[in-house]
């Protein structure tokens, strides 16, 4: 049961139950998937910054294609990979609006890498939340540019051989190497199993919450913000939810180390 305002001192707990930026529709996300967590963090940030009536979510192709069904804001769907270009079009004409997209790693780092890089290089005042779960989710578990060496996917049934398929592309590092973007950050989003298998650390979602707010603040200050969320996909990884959290913490977080890669406006220090 959701604790009432009187009982709780945790601002997020109190607010998550009745966010204006959330619709009442239950999400389609698989159990254990970080997309659901991120959706709530975004809604929370929109409410906190009081930007709901000037925010446009650009649905990108992948598991976040129904973002508009859960987020109570204006919305437009982009073709696979093109969300940054659509957002640039919106913001160039209407800089007073807030535009953001939740992109997957296939969407942003494969088919849409060009749109991503150029939007970042122009420092378009848009926000991109990248859910990096190292695999194509919605299409059923194919190799992504982020798939680590050896991972079994439906298109690498023997495990990914990077000598043959190419090495991983690290989007945060890539964007941080550009002069343009204002804010590039990588966050480990899953709840992480602690030593006792019954306990989890919520540090990831809490860091995620702060980063989502900061990302919007960067956009409001006129800069490009990009937050990559290292996430899980237990269904397509063919793991239990618990094992997927362990794998993310033990393997993925080492390949994709969390950290603040770029913060030109010093937003994290404010």
């Amino acid at each position: 049961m959701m604790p009432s305002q009187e009982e709780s001192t945790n601002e997020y707990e109190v607010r998550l139950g009745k966010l204006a930026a959330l619709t009442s529709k239950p999400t389609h996300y698989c159990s254990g998937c970080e997309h659901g967590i991120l959706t709530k963090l975004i809604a929370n940030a929109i409410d906190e910054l009081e930007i709901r009536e000037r925010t446009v979510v650009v649905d990108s192709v992948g598991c976040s294609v129904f973002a508009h069904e859960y987020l109570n804001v204006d919305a437009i769907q982009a073709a696979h990979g093109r969300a940054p270009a659509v957002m640039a079009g919106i913001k160039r004409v209407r800089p007073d609006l807030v535009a953001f997209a939740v992109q997957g790693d296939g969407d942003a780092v494969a088919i849409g890498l060009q749109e991503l890089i150029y939007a970042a290089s122009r420092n378009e005042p848009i926000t991109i939340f990248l859910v990096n779960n190292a695999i194509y989710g919605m299409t059923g578990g194919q190799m992504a540019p982020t798939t680590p060496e050896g991972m079994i996917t439906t298109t690498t049934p023997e495990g990914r051989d990077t000598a043959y398929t190419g090495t991983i592309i690290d989007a945060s590092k890539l964007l941080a190497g550009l002069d343009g973007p204002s804010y590039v950050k990588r966050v480990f989003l899953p709840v992480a199993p602690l030593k006792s298998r019954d306990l989890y650390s919520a540090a990831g979602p809490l860091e995620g919450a702060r980063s989502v707010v900061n990302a919007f603040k960067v956009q409001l200050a006129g800069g490009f913000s990009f937050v990559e969320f290292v996430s899980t996909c237990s269904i397509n990884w063919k793991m239990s939810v618990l094992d997927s959290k362990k794998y993310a913490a033990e393997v993925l977080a080492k390949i994709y180390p969390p950290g603040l890669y770029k913060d030109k406006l010093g937003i994290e220090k404010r």
Partner: protein
Amino acid sequence: MRDMLLGVSGLRHSRSEEPEEKVTAREFVKGNEALALGALKAGLNAYFAYPITPSSEIPETLAREFKSPQYPDFKVFLQSSSELEAINMVIGAAATGAKAMTATSGPGFSLKQEGLSYAASMEIPLLVVDVNRGGPGLGNLGPEQSDYYQSTKGGGHGGYRNIVLAPNSVQEMATFPSLGFSLAFKYRNPAIILADAFLGQLKEDTTYPPIAEEKFDTPWATTGARGETRHVLVSLHLDFDDQSRHVEHLLKKYEEMAREEQRAELYMTGDADVVVVAFGIVSRLVKQAVNALRAKGVRAGMLRPITLSPFPSRYISDLVSKGVKRFVVVELNTGQMVYDVKLAAENGVVERLNRWGGILPSSSEIVAKVEMTSA
């Protein structure tokens, strides 16, 4: 050459110094330049550019006029990294209700098709100009009309229709952006101006319409929710019944467009036995040919489709009912519009004359073709 370049830039400078006098003055300009200025007169808000010959004078002209006090509504000129990025920027800008456009030529027009399919489904009004060059592949830089299918039949996936306008003069290059935006917003549908390399590069005397005050109602635009009223533009309808209803809705719109918006120019068709059908630059040659045929006593006329989509089939069936027995379709391709003419002409005889690769037929070739089919 140097003088020519200086001459052109000199003209531009005098324009910006005396903006008001130049608005309605006759000017001797290239088709592409006329189209760009015509778009500005039509109240263009945003242009997203990617260069490709033979259309590049359009973004070049707009870059030059960007921030001119004469066009306060022209808020955005931005060069993109690709044709794909440009069309998707147009979609984003247009989704907020802005008059947004881009221009390209065949190879780039292929890349626009992805965006056009999404815009058609989400019913986002926007304008794309295709200055048709020779093809397929890289082809060449000469004039062709080989993008007729791609523009009129819904060149992207999934089955949809664009509004397609075909100018035949530099004057129409200047006025069709306004018509294109009007129709696009009226029907919430992508509009295409299908020009060709000849029209793009041709210089003619041109006057411009006054700057449009026309503001379109855009209650659907994604400009932020008002209370619980949201604006949601989506092209994904996973439920089969939903998708089916959506396609039906689009179909009804296309049928309405076909009822209301067929446009064509008729020339000497009143008593014609044979009518030559041609659009764009070819129609100029056909008009000469018709005059020559009339001088020889052949009762020839011309039908020039102005809207290629919706195709002016009603004009053709009217001509058939008035006794026209034969049509000759002249196109700069291997034969595309000819099939639309055949559909509309039903039992009429439909002949064709085609040139491609950048080569235009001469008017005497057209005369000869008509005489041969009359014999």
